[in-house]
Structure formats: structure tokens, C-alpha cells
């Protein structure tokens, strides 16, 4: 562990993060909403601090980062982004306490979309824009962004990439890691631009189009309105956003291959097929369940079900209807969706389809082995055998995920929250979804959670976004030993 290297890269990261604050600065100028100075100060502190850190550690060389260093840079880099990202909220007075600001900021970067704001519409546009931008940056990864523009990272970039986008199998799309990162960002940017265009054409104000797109593509879920997407009450907007939530929930490597001309890639990819199948089945189930009981027309039921199921399973967290008024079976389906998540390699959170599929296959293999004790059988996905070490890592991930979930639920309940709130708030934060159940349900927000609970949930968000291992390893004594 070389402290200099770690600090230097975190410095670079903060510098870039600060530069991104120039965008809301422009917005605040356009709207002259009074948030210009607070954002300017935030920019100066973030970029300036980053630059000082970068210059002060100029003797470090970063060419050969070890895996450990990569993990430290990513974890602490994200924490520092959460902190500096909260400055515009604090300085503008939009959010009073540090706890709340940090919660909102990290909820943004981790693309959770859990908010503590009661009256979102009253915020200055500049701050609202920053709030959406944090999600967009966090979706593809601030560190992947740095890798894309810092070619000197070389192999070190690979360590950071693996720590920030921890997928069961690492997809390197291009021979070089910086090219891979660039490619991902280009694809991300392209789909973002298309969605903004479609929303704007449909009549959504430009500001709202941009902000909502910035929160769709990373499967984030922040809205510029208190009632989220329900505010617009437009089937067109809901349709567009539903489609783009699905796109954001697909592995970006597939988008890349599609754009390169391989048009059948989505149908061929086994994980994608299963994802779409699960999505369709659950939408159908919920539609049938809420038709007649909550909604009079089948079209209305389908519209609400399609949006809400997609929003939760891709871990976006946009809301068009208060699903807590739905029948229990629909609520349970949504609760389970918070755990399933979207595809590996997408911007979505939670356990992810690939892991679920492999775990199920793993389970069936054990049954097969009981029948044929001497059988040797490898687990296949789409005809390709999956290495045992990948399976081990997935089982480990699953156990840790559930273990941490249970632990956090216990903490929440001891802080005095009711059963549904405890279960829902942790599921929604560790899965980077956003709205949960009970006190933190779709029609409410996280402001009523006790401060200690907010910090616990903040940690859950980070654990979920960086897929457990990268963060939890910081707690292992062996990690710090020389």
C-alpha cells in the first residue's frame, strides 16, 4: 500500500469532479436562481483541493497499481466524491445538516435515488441539476471516467476498473483499458442524448428532460419533482423512460456490440434473454394482480405495472404510483425485484441476473450430484462453461449480500423503525433502488430516518454500488497488514 499513489489518484478524481460542477454553475447563471456562489465555492474547494493533493504527491508513480491499492482508491475516492458532492447542497442551504447532505450526495453517486428532500421543487435549478448530474456520473463510474482520459494509468487502470465495475466476468471491449472505458462512456453518452431528445420532442421542458435522463441512464431515480414521474402523468414519457430504464439495465458491452453492427446480440446473450423474460413475466403478474383491484382498465394497470416493475428491477426507483396501495403479492414482487437487479455490466445495482442464474444452476447441480455422486459436471451459461472460481466468488457475494442485509435490517429495527420500513429501507439502499416501503415508501422519503440510520444506509448504498467486496475488504485486518 503506497499512500502517495492513492492520494494522488484521489486528488485527480476530485479535480475532475470539481470540473463537472461547472455545468450546474452555468445552469444557475441561466436561471439566476441564487445558487451561483455556493456552487462556485464548491467548485473551487473540490477542484482546488484535488489539485493541491495531486501536486503535493507529485513524486508518486502510478504505473503499477496493485489490486489492493485499486480498491482503496475506489472506496476512498467514492467517499470523497460523496463528501465534496454534498458541498453545493450545504452551501446553498438547500439541505441543512451534513448528514442529510452526505446522504443525498452519496445516494446520487451510487445511483440509489433515495432522497431526504421534502420539497424538491423549491431547490434552485443549479442545485437540482447537480443532484441529477451526480447520478449520471456515478452510473458509468467516476473512476472509469478518469481511466478514459488518463491513458498513463495503463495496467493500473485495470485494477481501478475491476474495483469500480465489479462484474462476475470482466469484459474488456478493447485491447486497452483506457479505450474500453472510453468506449463505455461513448455508448452511455449516445443513449443519454437520444433519451433527452425523445423526452424533449414529447414536450417535456429541456431542463426536466436532461435531469430525468441523467437519472434514467445510470438507473438512479432522482426526479426534479416531488411526485417523481407521476408529476407529468403522460403515457409517452413513461413509455420512453421505461424503454430507457430497460436499456440502462442491459450490459453495456451488448450495446457496444449492437452499435458495431451485431444486431442480434441481445437475443443471443443468455443473460439478456433471461432478464427480458423475467421482466415480462413479472410485469404480466403485477398487471393481472392490480387490474380490477386498483385500476379499472387493463391498459391503465399495464402502464403502471410496466413502469413500476421496470423501475424497481433495474434499481432505478422512479415512481408513477404508490405501490404500497397495491395488493400484497404485487408488493412482494417489487420487494424481490429490489434483490434481483438488472444485468451484470449494466448501470443497475443489486445482486444482478447473472449471479441469480448461476446460483440457481449451482443449486440444481447439487441436486444432480446427490443423484449421481460421481458425476463431474460444469455449469454452463449460454453454452460456455463457467469457471469454478467465478461460482465461488458469486456464492461468497450472495452470502455477504444477504448477511449484510440482515445485519443492517437489525440495526434499523433497533433504531426504532417498524418492520416494513426496516426491511424496505435496507433493500432499497443496498440494492441502489431508492424508494422502499413503510416510512420510506414511494410517496414518502428518508428524512424521518434517525441520523445513525442514515449513516448506516449510506454505507449500504456504497456497499451495493461497489458490489460489497471492494468496500468490505477495507474492514479486513489482513488488508492493512504489510
Amino acid at each position, binding site marked *: 500500500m503506497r499512500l502517495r499513489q492513492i492520494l494522488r489518484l484521489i486528488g485527480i478524481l476530485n479535480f475532475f469532479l470539481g470540473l463537472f460542477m461547472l455545468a450546474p454553475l452555468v445552469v444557475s447563471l441561466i436561471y439566476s436562481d441564487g445558487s451561483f456562489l455556493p456552487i462556485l465555492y464548491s467548485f473551487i474547494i473540490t477542484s482546488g483541493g484535488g489539485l493541491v493533493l495531486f501536486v503535493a504527491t507529485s513524486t508518486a508513480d502510478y504505473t503499477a497499481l496493485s*489490486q489492493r491499492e485499486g480498491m482503496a482508491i475506489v472506496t476512498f475516492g467514492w467517499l470523497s466524491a460523496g463528501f465534496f458532492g454534498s458541498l453545493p447542497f450545504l452551501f446553498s442551504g438547500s439541505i441543512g445538516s451534513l448528514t442529510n447532505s452526505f446522504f443525498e450526495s452519496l445516494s446520487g453517486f451510487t445511483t440509489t435515488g433515495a432522497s431526504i428532500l421534502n420539497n424538491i421543487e423549491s431547490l434552485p435549478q443549479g442545485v437540482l441539476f447537480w443532484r441529477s448530474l451526480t447520478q449520471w456520473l456515478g452510473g458509468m463510474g467516476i473512476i472509469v471516467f478518469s481511466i478514459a482520459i488518463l491513458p498513463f494509468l*495503463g*495496467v493500473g*487502470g*485495470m*485494477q481501478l476498473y475491476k474495483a469500480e465495475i465489479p462484474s462476475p466476468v*470482466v469484459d*474488456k*471491449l*478493447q*485491447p*486497452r*483499458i483506457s*479505450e474500453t472505458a472510453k468506449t463505455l462512456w461513448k455508448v452511455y453518452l449516445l443513449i443519454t442524448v437520444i433519451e433527452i431528445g425523445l423526452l424533449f420532442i414529447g414536450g417535456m421542458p429541456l431542463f426536466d428532460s436532461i435531469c430525468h435522463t441523467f437519472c434514467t441512464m445510470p438507473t438512479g431515480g432522482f426526479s426534479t419533482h416531488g411526485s417523481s414521474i407521476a408529476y407529468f402523468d403522460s403515457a409517452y414519457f413513461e413509455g420512453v423512460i421505461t424503454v430507457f430504464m430497460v436499456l440502462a439495465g442491459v450490459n453495456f458491452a451488448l450495446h457496444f456490440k449492437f452499435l458495431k453492427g451485431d444486431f442480434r446480440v441481445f437475443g443471443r446473450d443468455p443473460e439478456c434473454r433471461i432478464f427480458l423474460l423475467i421482466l415480462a413475466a413479472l410485469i404480466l403478474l403485477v398487471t393481472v394482480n392490480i387490474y380490477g383491484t386498483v385500476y379499472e382498465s387493463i391498459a391503465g394497470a399495464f402502464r403502471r405495472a410496466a413502469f413500476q416493475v421496470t423501475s424497481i428491477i433495474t434499481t432505478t426507483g422512479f415512481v408513477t404510483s404508490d405501490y404500497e396501495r397495491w395488493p400484497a403479492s404485487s408488493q412482494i414482487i417489487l420487494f424481490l425485484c429490489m434483490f434481483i437487479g438488472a444485468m451484470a455490466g449494466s448501470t443497475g445495482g443489486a445482486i444482478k441476473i447473472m449471479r441469480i442464474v448461476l446460483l440457481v444452476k449451482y443449486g440444481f447441480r447439487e441436486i444432480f450430484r446427490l443423484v449421481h455422486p460421481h458425476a463431474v459436471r460444469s455449469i454452463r451459461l449460454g453454452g460456455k462453461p463457467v*469457471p469454478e472460481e467465478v461460482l465461488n466468488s458469486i456464492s461468497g457475494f450472495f452470502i455477504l449480500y444477504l448477511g449484510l442485509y440482515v445485519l443492517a435490517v437489525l440495526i434499523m429495527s433497533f433504531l426504532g423503525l417498524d418492520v416494513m420500513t426496516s426491511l424496505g429501507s435496507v433493500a432499497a439502499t443496498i440494492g441502489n433502488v431508492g424508494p422502499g416501503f413503510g416510512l420510506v415508501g414511494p410517496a414518502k422519503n428518508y428524512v424521518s430516518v434517525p441520523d445513525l440510520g442514515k449513516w448506516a444506509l449510506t454505507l449500504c448504498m456504497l456497499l451495493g454500488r461497489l458490489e460489497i467486496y471492494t468496500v468490505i475488504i477495507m474492514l479486513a485486518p489482513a488488508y492493512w497488514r504489510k
Partner: protein
Amino acid sequence: MKIIIIGAGEVGFNIAQRLSEENHDVVVIDKDQNKINHLQTVIDVQAIVGSGTNPSILQEAGINESDIIVAATDSDEVNLIACFYAQYLTEYITKIARVRNSGYTEHSDMFKTDFLNIDLIINPQSEMVSSMLKLMEVPEASEVLDFVNGKVKLIGVTVKEDSPLVGRKLSSFQDVEQVLLVGVIIRGEEVIIPSGQDVIQPNDLLYCVTRKEEISTIFRLLNIREAGLGRVVIVGGGTTGLALATSLDKTNINTKIIEKDSQRCLELAEKLEKVVVLNGDGTDRDFLVEENIADVDLMVVITGDEETNVLISLLGKALGAKKTVTRIGKLSYIPLVSTIGIDTVVSPRLSAIRAILQYIRKGKVVCVAPLKSEAAEVIEFEALETSDIVNTPLSEVKFPREAIVGAIVRGEEIIIPRGHNMIKPHDHLIIFALKGAIPKLEKLFTVKLEYF
């Protein structure tokens, strides 16, 4: 350039590492998941698990956009089949194959022109034999490389303690500056591109460029007596041993070859005329003494077991052999051996890597040779008219600090340069450089490697 490398063994790995560092896009294919995992954490390349003889894997690796395919697995057949598919999938790709079986290389024309269009067939063993033969031309040097068709020689020599150069600053070499230029000093594991202020110490390994005719002047300066090569002992009668012995069989050098296996000895004796074939164990001290190892000028130890090779060489040195050449396969051992007293190392893998890199980087880069420790290289560049460096005194050219011009070759003339010398268009420059300086040098020479 985009380059596909099949096989992530030592040869494939090292080539991938070099090319990736030189900003080429590299895709490596190997069957072994573990090797691929390791590779990906150490070098910035795309790695694919799969067989290089599977066309769909080759396509996944992007063979259609690739410029070069290097088949460097341990298996000749896999390499040849990979080239076959590459030829089938993309007609104009440059194909390089590592082929070890001499049965195949004897008919290499078939693979090269008639059938597979393989551009370069590397036989590590014959590369190694030819580098050993070059070394025998200048037996006092630990390494000999040819530039400009052999007119300029790069030699590596170890400074003895009684050498008159010990303790002198390089800048004080007024008397020899027309003759030699020290390009790299290797001191222990440290690699130095020297400036005038550096002082020569005993046991330094110096790499210098010089004209072929002046090699003896250098040895005189270093107080090394040129004895010529009288007696050679080869330990190990495998294919390499046989190939080397066959070449020596035609010369007047008194050669003996030691082989453990008596059956093999019969075969050797049938094929060799003058060379004395001895059936015995090279690790047997008494046997070596009996064969008068103390009088031997050069002992070449090339059995199949590299650890044994090291021990036999040390034993031979202890018994009085003047110089040893040791075959070592594992590249990680190579920087260590000079510290334990082994003079010269040959390695089939290093030879293969050199030959492949040389070929890939061809273009205006005429010739490249990685030096012993792999941290430095000697490169032969051709100065283009369009390049910034021509017609300026060398002292004013913004050379990277880690590089030094060793020689300028202008037609028949060979100049060992000083600061006032100018580079003219079409001069060939021989440059010593640490690894990190190579991309900068390429820029300086505006040598775009997208030559193909």
C-alpha cells in the same frame, strides 16, 4: 497497430508486454484461464480464453481488423494451424509463427511461399545457434550483436579489475572516442545510460558499439588478451548441441561434445566428422578434469535442464574453463546469473522474442535488440529527411535523457559520434535506450510504426 498473440507462455507474454508498452493494441489468446487472469492484471491487453486454432475465437479477437498475428505457443502444429486459419480469414494479415521442430523448418518454403504465406518463421533454436556462433567470432565478449549487416558490432564486455579503464570518467576517454562509445553500463541489476560523468567500476558490464575492425583495439584498452578460440567443449548433445557442433565441425576449432546418453552419442558420432564425441556426465568433476577442462577456451552448456546447466557452468569455471555460455530457458533467471559468475547466457525464448520483436518493429526501425537485462535496447533507426533531427548538431537535438547515439553509419563510413556531429538524411543511427525512452525516440524520428 493491432496485434493478436496466440499463447500466453513466456514468449507470448513478453512480446505482449513489450508491444503493449509501445502503444500497440494487443489481444492475447490462451487456453489457460489462470494464465489469462494473470496476464490481465499485469499488462494492459485484451485477453481471451480459448484456442488459437478456433476460427470463431480468432474472429472474437478481431482478426479482421488486425495487422499481425503471432503464433507463439509451445506447439508447432497449433501455431501452423492458427496461421492457416488466419490466412483463411484475412488474406493480408502478417503472420509470424514460432516453429521449433527442425523437420518443419527445413521445409519452411512450403509454409512461407507455397501454401500458408507465413511471413516469418521463428525457430528459437536456430536463432540461438546463430547467436552462439556470432559470439564465437569475438569470444572475449559476453554478447555480440550485428548492426548494418555486421559492419558495426555491439559487444558486451565485463571490465576486469586490472583494466586501465577502471576508475576513469567516461568523459576522459579522449584517446578512444573515435573508436568506441559506451552505450550502456550494467552494474549488478542496475542499468545505466551513461553520461560523461559516470565512472567505470570493476565488474561493470559495458555495452559498446564499434567498427568490426577495431574490436581488438578495444580489448587492448580493456587489458583483455585476445586468445582466439582454440578449444571448445559443448555439454549436451541435443538438437542444439548437434547444430552447433555441425557448424564447428567445418572450422579448425578443436571441439568436443559431451553427451550422457550412449545411444545418442552413436548418432552424434555418425553425423560429426572432426568433433570428438564423449559419452559422460557433465556434472562429473573427474570426467571434466580428465578431459582437460582447464585448457578450454569456451564451454557451451546446453543440456535440457537449466538448473543443471548453471551448475555445470560453475563447475567448469571452477576447473579453469576460460569462458562459459549457458543455456537458460526461464527469463526470470537471466538477470541473476551474472551475479553468480556465469559469463554469457543464451535462451531460446529470448532469441524468439528478439526475432519476433525485430520483425514487428521493422519499418524505418531497421533492427532492434533487447540487451541482456531487458531494461535497455539497441535500436537501428534510419533518419528520414522529414525528421527534425537531421542537419542539426547532435548536442542540440532534444534527445530523451535515457537514450544515447552509439554510432552513425553513413554509406560506408562509420562515425562514433560526438556532440558536434550532424545527422544527415538516410544515415543509420544506432541508439542505446532504456525501455521508457523508446516511444519518445519513435516520435523524434517521426517513425510511424503504422508502416504496414
